[in-house]
């Protein structure tokens, strides 16, 4: 049971949502945008998040869009992970979504919620990082499209009342060879010790990680080492790991040394598999 109550609105347009947000902020309600809501409900139940105003964004058509618009795949923020998993419009995203939580939960968890949530792993962002996706942000002046690399720096850097409406991915990115791997401490369902998503683009391997460090990331310097043809397989993997500029996690899921061990093996496998595909 959530130990406090809140106002709830489900606006049908993003401009209405922003108006409600601004009003409730003035009223001191500490409003939050609500999409799948799984994280908000579980945190609210434990009194880890306080709000007196919940704005459900599942009522606006842009958030429910899913499909091709010319050569772009449009994914509304309110699309559940289970739908992305099943539709396979972007196979790498489908595969990554398949390993987030469990199927029934994925019927509720949305891509917008997963990416913008408080939980550190945010694995749904990995395919979007390697695919150079575009974020569509709702703002007071209308919708604006911003490259994901300008919006996502470990966490989504969107300042309310603005919020994420959609993500868009170029068709060519959805057809490239891809690989995704996830390792957990024990079971198939669980938080990642290491989770990675990779594509083989014209410029080489692109790869993004979750579970390895505090926040998900894609690193061009790591990719540069993985794509360095002058080094042996083992050397390029070692160099790539050395290029990770933030501390590798050392927690109850796995030690830092174990994470590096797992990562090293996964990177070797991925390079070998991509080499086979390109031969």
């Amino acid at each position, binding site marked *: 049971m959530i130990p406090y109550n809140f*106002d709830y609105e489900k606006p049908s347009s993003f401009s209405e949502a922003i108006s409600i947000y601004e009003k409730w902020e003035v009223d001191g309600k500490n409003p939050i945008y609500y999409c799948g*809501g799984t994280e908000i*409900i579980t945190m609210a139940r434990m009194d880890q998040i306080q709000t007196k105003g*919940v704005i459900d964004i*599942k009522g606006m058509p842009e958030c429910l869009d899913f499909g091709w618009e010319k050569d772009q795949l449009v994914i509304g923020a309110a699309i559940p992970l289970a739908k992305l998993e099943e539709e396979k419009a972007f196979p790498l995203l489908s595969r990554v979504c398949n390993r987030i*939580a469990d199927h*029934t939960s994925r019927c*509720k968890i949305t891509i917008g919620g997963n990416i913008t949530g408080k939980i550190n792993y945010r694995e749904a962002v990995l395919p979007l990082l390697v695919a150079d996706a575009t974020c569509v942000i709702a703002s007071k002046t209308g919708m604006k499209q911003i490259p994901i690399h300008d919006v996502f720096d470990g966490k989504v850097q969107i300042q309310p009342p603005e919020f994420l409406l959609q993500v868009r991915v170029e068709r060519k990115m959805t057809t490239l060879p891809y690989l995704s791997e996830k390792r957990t401490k024990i079971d198939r369902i669980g938080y990642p010790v290491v989770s990675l998503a990779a594509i083989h683009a014209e410029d080489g391997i692109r790869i993004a990680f979750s579970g390895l460090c505090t926040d998900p990331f894609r690193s061009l310097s790591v990719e540069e080492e993985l794509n360095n043809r002058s080094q042996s397989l083992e050397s390029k993997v070692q160099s790539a790991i050395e290029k990770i500029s933030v501390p590798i996690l050392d927690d109850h899921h796995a030690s830092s040394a174990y994470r590096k061990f797992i990562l090293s093996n996964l990177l070797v496998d991925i390079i070998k598999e991509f080499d086979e595909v390109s031969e």
Partner: protein
Amino acid sequence: MNRQIHLNINGEEKSVYIRNADTLLTALREQLGLTGAKPGCENGDCGACTVIIEGMPQKSCIMLAVEGIGKQITTIEGLNNTPIQQAFLEKWAFQCGYCTSGFIMNCHALMEKHPDAEDVVVENWLQSNICRCTSYQEIKEAIHSVLSKNS
């Protein structure tokens, strides 16, 4: 402050008085007396509270009741002698029974959406529910007995 909302549950329009912060699980059990959905972890982990919303399984502990407005909600009370219920009986796919309604709702949604589901699909869906009595083998047999009849 409570408010009145209307929910379509098992094909009937129901009027309920809830707080906006109430979960669907709370509304079902405490307002409507539909106690088939069980409170287990109340954290979205165990699946004992699974209901079907618009044909898909949902954990009613991680859904606000107000989100159910305008949706077709089915609880275990809305199922009547379905093939998967019969199969659970025939295969003894339960022990204490606390998780059973959640399992059946998930299985029923699976059968409706994928009447010829392959093993990989069954496993993917059924990983959402936990049985502390570990009746997993019997539950698997129950599912396969329905699937084999479908095929």
